[in-house]
């Protein structure tokens, strides 16, 4: 899966939890889940659990703490997929 495909998958996963839909339209690597997309912390957990299911990977606490924006999340997913 290349970077664009990963980003598309991630976008699908986060969409149900996004409160700021305008920011979703301009989704980029710099998009912050909480500040830009206004996802709350409980739904951030749901995003991570959905990422685990979608990519069949296990996210640890320290990974979760990093996954606050698109760029960091893609990095964690890629690292797990290649592990």
């Amino acid at each position, binding site marked *: 899966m290349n970077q664009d495909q990963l980003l598309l998958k991630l976008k699908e996963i986060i969409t149900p939890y996004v409160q700021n839909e305008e920011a979703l339209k301009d989704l980029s690597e710099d998009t912050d889940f909480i500040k830009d997309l206004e996802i709350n*912390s*409980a739904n951030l957990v749901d995003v*991570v659990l959905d990422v685990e299911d979608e990519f069949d990977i296990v996210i640890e606490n320290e990974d979760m703490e990093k996954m606050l924006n698109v760029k960091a999340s893609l990095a964690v997913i890629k690292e797990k997929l290649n592990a």
Partner: protein
Amino acid sequence: MKTKKITKEEILNLLPYKRPFLFVDEILTLNEEQIVAQYTFRQDEFFYEGHFVDSPITPGVILTECMAQIGLASLGLYLIRDSVKNKAPDVAMTSNEVNYYKLVLPGEKVVVTAIKEYFRFNKLKSKVEMVNDSGTLVAKGFVSGMVIKY
């Protein structure tokens, strides 16, 4: 990893609620996967005076609160017992989805069973079910909550 032993009474004492907003009397079953606990709605609960005028009925939000105090706060305290000293952490309910099936009148006892769906990254989601004294389903659904600060 060695886990701390904690009794059902200790969990009750740790709950960050008191009357008139405590809706757990006794924990009957408690383990890593589920909790069963009961509460009897007193004749003089504060909300009966206004809900409804001349016709006291337990509000649905209170039934949900009761299920959350059992299925989230009580079960959650048990799950994080290793990090709890003598005070419950700050917690918050983050979502619920509940259907109601039967009225609960003043004086009625309810029994709540909550089964853990998951507890990950400080978020607990539980499947909850409330029955009345004759075993009839009163309310059923899902509640979620988070530890905000230990």
